[in-house]
């Protein structure tokens, strides 16, 4: 039976997914609100938690963007972790010596250097992309130790695995009127804070969430988050972006239309390294004020995971990173509240389970119910989750999401496939 091939101009479907997303978002907030009221864990949606979450989201998001820019040109970048490490070191070095903005600049350059090495190895010398990435990580890890030994040892509070602390910081903003930020020299009312304190159903939560994004907001975070729409704009609205994406989707087709795929791939990896470096710089300049060995803690890889289940789109990466940021934020602000998350998971999976069973999707329904049962048991029995286990949360989440996400994903078609020019026909 052949499909009838109709070329109809469909009604623009772009409205529905967005509306759907808003609906899902609102339901999640509502469920979270219920959980908060039931358990009394106000921290679940407090501005403090959300503020921390934002700070924790940014490095992962930047790592994810780093992965995006690389895979969109067709090259796997497992070395993001290493490029982030370079970013943490060079960022801390620059910030310590010259101030935070120079620090960021050096962080980006440091990461790009890593990107360049990876590019030369994989494009010019055709090394296996995964091997090159893995070696990149080791090179960076030990390279910065050596650099530390040269530069930080002997400095106050410095050593082979730590840099001296920075003295200048990037200013933080509080939005006036909504979050009590100053206008001129007078303080303004903290409208959202007031609402948040009232703790009303949904309104209180929304206020908390919004205020968290508006108070104590670092300028750097703001700029970083703006890189998400900027990336999207460049990739989808400029010639450069189109040619870049085509190099990862169909390099032969691109080549046949005059695109210099090799050059585009080099540029993509430089940008990728730059993003990774920026993410690392964020860790050592904003999240803390010094470089420390192991600061990246696998965020490069988690970033890759957000790229995968963000479906290789900047918005998806932001969303995925936000999930990680939030879970780490909760842990940081009030570790005990994490049991509240069990209740949240219970409610969400119960709902998904019921809907799936009504839709006759037995497999998804039973899996969701199963998860709900586990969450229920956890909620009832666990009073305090041991620190060592919560540490593994982001990595477990990564695995779980990757394991379940396989179907709807759409990676760039030729990501990871080595390309030799002149290969088409």
């Amino acid at each position, binding site marked *: 039976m052949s499909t009838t091939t109709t070329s109809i101009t469909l009604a623009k479907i772009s409205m529905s997914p967005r509306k759907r997303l808003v609906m899902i978002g609102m339901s999640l907030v509502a469920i979270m609100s219920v959980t908060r009221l039931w358990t009394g864990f106000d921290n679940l949606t407090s501005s403090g938690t959300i503020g921390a979450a934002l700070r924790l989201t940014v490095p992962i998001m930047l790592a994810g963007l780093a992965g995006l820019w690389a895979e969109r040109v067709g090259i796997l970048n497992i070395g993001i972790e290493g490029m982030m490490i370079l970013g943490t070191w060079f960022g801390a070095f620059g910030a310590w010596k010259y101030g935070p903005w120079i620090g960021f600049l050096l962080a980006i350059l440091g990461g790009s250097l890593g990107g360049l090495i990876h590019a030369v190895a994989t494009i010019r010398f055709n*090394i296996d992309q995964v091997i090159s990435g893995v070696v990149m990580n080791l090179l960076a890890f030990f390279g910065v130790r050596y650099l530390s030994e040269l530069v930080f040892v002997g400095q106050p509070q410095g050593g082979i695995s730590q840099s001296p602390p920075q003295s200048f910081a990037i200013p933080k903003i509080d939005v006036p009127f909504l979050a009590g930020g100053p206008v001129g020299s007078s303080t303004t009312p903290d409208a959202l804070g007031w609402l948040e304190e009232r703790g009303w159903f949904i309104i209180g939560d929304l206020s908390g969430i919004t205020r968290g994004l508006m108070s104590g907001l670092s300028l750097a975070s703001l700029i970083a988050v703006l890189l998400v729409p900027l990336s999207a704009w460049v990739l989808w609205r400029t010639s450069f972006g189109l040619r870049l994406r085509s190099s990862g989707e169909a390099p032969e087709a691109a080549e046949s239309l005059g695109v210099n795929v090799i050059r585009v791939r080099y540029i993509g990896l430089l940008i990728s390294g730059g993003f990774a470096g920026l993410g690392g710089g964020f860790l050592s300049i904003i999240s803390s004020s010094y470089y420390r060995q192991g600061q990246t803690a696998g965020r490069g890889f988690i970033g890759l995971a957000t790229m995968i289940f963000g479906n290789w789109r900047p918005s998806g990466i932001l969303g995925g990173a936000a999930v990680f940021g939030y879970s780490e934020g909760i842990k940081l602000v009030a570790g005990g509240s994490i049991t509240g998350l069990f209740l949240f998971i219970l409610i969400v999976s119960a709902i998904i389970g019921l809907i799936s069973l009504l839709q006759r999707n037995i497999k998804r329904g039973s899996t969701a119910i199963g998860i709900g049962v586990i969450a229920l048991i956890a909620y009832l029995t666990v009073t305090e989750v041991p620190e*060592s286990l919560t540490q593994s949360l982001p990595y477990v989440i990564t695995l779980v999401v990757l*394991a379940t996400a396989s179907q709807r994903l759409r990676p760039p078609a030729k990501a990871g496939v080595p390309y030799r020019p002149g290969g088409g026909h």
Partner: protein
Amino acid sequence: MSDTAVAPSGPLGKILTPSRASGLRTSGTTLASSLIAVLIALAISALMLFITGKDPVAAFTTMIDTAKNSDKLLEMMRRATPLIFSATAVAIGFKMNIFNIGVEGQYLFAALMAAEAGSHLSLPGPLHVAAILAVALISGAAWAGISAYLKVRKNVHEVISTIMLNYIALSFIQWIFNSFFRDDSVEGLNVKTTIIAESGWLPDIVEGRLNSMFIIALIVVAIFWVVVYRSRFGFKLRASGYNATAASTAGISATKMTVIALLLSGAVAGLVAMQSVLGETHAYGPSATPIQLGFAGITVALLGRNHPVGIVVAALLFGFLDSTSAQLQLAEVPNSIVKVMQAIIVLTVVIVNEAAVRRANVRTAERARAELAAGGAA
């Protein structure tokens, strides 16, 4: 109708059969290119030292001096032992184009399990040791098995899953150790599991300097060689690595091979810390059990080109380099240069090898054509 190969005549011809000759040519190319790469890497390292204001000559002379010390040579072999296990584990996967980056998590998990299990057993000598080894093998394989399941059933790329499992292992191990396995009867900061009874100790070859685990490492590499290059299973493994499509067309199940390869890889990984558990500290502990050996194994495997002899040589080389760090400290050379050198060596070797192999293949094809033309028509 066929062409007889042009072979050297006389007794040399009998030893240097055409097949051996071509095999030697391949090894020769690899060896030569690796040596060149190492020299290039050393040059780059010297440059790095020079640029950052350190004395490359001092560094290298210190290293060479270290080599003259026989004690240091024993230390080289001692340090090489876990690297041999780690690299072999990685190489098993590489033969099938599977990247097991999770050796780190696998070996630490195995070390904890084996040490704890060993502390509860009381068996006569060899059996006790064998039991501990068995637990290590099984635990390593089990941890790798998670990645195998995720890859085969859920299509999760093994690079990400093994790396995630490394971090998860660290957490998981810390929790289990602190909650259940820690021996709190012993005072001090160096906490460990309960020390294993002496029947579970593996004796040293050279007292205090080199443990019998080194011999076991060599045996494992030898088994690796036999299995991968001589056995039927090894053939299937390598065939899947050569051309997965052709292998499955011929009936070799890609899924089965993937799972077995990962399990074996994990099992061998489980042995990485056994020198420490059986021969040195006789327990597991956060400060007692060495870390980072999983990643080191990857570099050794890459440097050794996933070949048994290469792995041993590379492990010894890296073991030697590691042993120089104390002397370098004394000579006022930052000893972290050692690790950087190792990373640079690996990168250059991989690059140079890739280029060399490509050129060698072109020459092999040309030589084949020439020999056929010279040998006359069919």
